[in-house]
């Protein structure tokens, strides 16, 4: 058991060294997008609008935090892994070392979680300053951490199965980008037709933003969404393990 933790930390260690060297650049690139959304939608488009009894800024803030957690965790876990595997071909070093595939999967996931948390906490600080009604409860933190895990698992999975740089780009354009805008991040799902809603419930970010918003605005908490989020996490993790097993054939 101790070996498993030690191995996980060894895998994480190397990515933490990288992060330590490039922290400013990493942080800047992960919060520029959310801040643009915040200014464009929260202040620009949404000023003066009230939404479900909240100002639009209060409403949109948890959604933007959810999408920050998603993009930073997904990118943080997946992109370097993908580049290391396909372009630098240094991923084999992990496979040739005596650490378990489980430790490898979790270690590679944790760097995404760390980067997702750093970006979303930074944004959260901005959020608390401009929208003081946000409630940061333990439940909010729990959902945020779970979200980071779910999207890091997804990042590792895509980083492992993508056969080319184009594959990564295609997945970002076809899945990540639409998810950013459609998953109840910028608007309430209650405005949408039932059929569309059903489709959107198949996107993990929908559940992430629903849960974060409910926790932040102390609305009734959608426990089923939390369960769905955990389900997505489990499926993505299982996918990572299968992909890693296949990597050594």
């Amino acid at each position: 058991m101790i070996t498993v933790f030690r191995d996980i930390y060894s895998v994480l260690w190397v990515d933490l060294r990288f992060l330590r060297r490039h922290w400013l650049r990493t942080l800047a690139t992960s919060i520029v997008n959310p801040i643009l959304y915040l200014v464009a939608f929260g202040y620009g488009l949404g000023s003066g609008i009230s939404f479900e009894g909240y100002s639009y800024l209060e409403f949109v803030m948890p959604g933007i935090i959810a999408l920050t957690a998603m993009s930073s965790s997904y990118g943080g876990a997946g992109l370097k892994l993908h580049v290391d595997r396909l372009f630098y071909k240094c991923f084999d070093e992990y496979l040739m070392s005596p650490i378990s595939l489980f430790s490898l999967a979790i270690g590679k996931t944790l760097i995404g979680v760390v980067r997702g948390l750093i970006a979303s906490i930074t944004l959260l600080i901005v959020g608390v300053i401009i929208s003081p009604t946000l409630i940061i409860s333990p439940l909010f933190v729990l959902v945020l951490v779970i979200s980071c895990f779910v999207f890091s698992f997804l990042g590792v999975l895509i980083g492992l199965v993508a056969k080319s740089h184009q594959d990564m780009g295609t997945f970002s354009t076809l899945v990540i980008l639409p998810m950013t805008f459609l998953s109840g991040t910028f608007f309430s799902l209650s405005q949408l037709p039932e059929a569309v809603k059903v489709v959107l419930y198949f996107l993990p970010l929908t559940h992430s933003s629903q849960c974060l918003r409910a926790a932040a605005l102390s609305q009734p908490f959608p426990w089923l969404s939390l369960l769905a989020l955990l389900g997505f996490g489990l499926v993505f993790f299982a996918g990572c393990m299968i992909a890693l097993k296949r990597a050594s054939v």
Partner: protein
Amino acid sequence: MEEVIVTEKLTKRYGDVRAVEDLNLKVHSGEIFGFLGPNGAGKTTTIRVLTTLTKPTSGCACVSSFDVVKEPDKVKKVIGVVQQHLSLDRDLTVRENMEFRARLHHLESSERRRRIDELLDYVGLTEQANRIVEDLSGGMKKRAMIVSSLMHRPKVLFLDEPTVGLDAQTRRRLWELIRRLHLDGTTIFLTTHYIEEAEALCQRVGIIHLGRLIDLGKPLELRQRLGLVAVETLVNNKETCYQYFADRAAATSYVQNLPPDAKTIIIRDSNLEDVFVELTGRKVGDD
């Protein structure tokens, strides 16, 4: 003599492509074994199977008596691998890369530090320890890769085309390092498509072509089978013809009896390139 690597009827196919076919090989403890062959002959595939990265289609392979398919974790503990391409994390320093390998192999922190300093000194990289790998020269990168693979004192070191793309001087320094590792007791399995590298370093050489081992022995033995002296003759200004003889006397008497239209006659020692060409009908460097 203890065998460190044993393969029996080892075969690896990718679809219809036979990368390695029926390979039977024994590498003795403490030797430098060279796997010589052109690009695409199956050298890297063999290394990938022996280092547990790829599963064989059939046959078996053992490293240090551990089966690569059944006991990959035990194999991983006794091997060090230096890949053909730069496999270090290029954004980290040499020391960080070494520490990373040491962590993967469960070295304790005091031992890590000691071993890193010792190895940096061994290959003359102490002053480069805190430089980012990306900024190093080709030779330094290769030396950094070698020391990173030695952190856990492997019994067998796999070197896949260790000197590809390096200049002559750097290559000689690396040869020196490989010889030193050998003298210190490490068994070395190296692949190369450079004839002179195989001749300069290896006690025994296996020649691989189209996935099959076509000859195996000491470089001198392989040359003896062919003839130690080679005569090159240009016939009709068109084709160079090669003849091999056991000694200079036999070669000289052959040259004296050549027809008058034979030109540009060269008498030289035969080499492994000759062995390879005679066995396969092509040159080692051909793709």
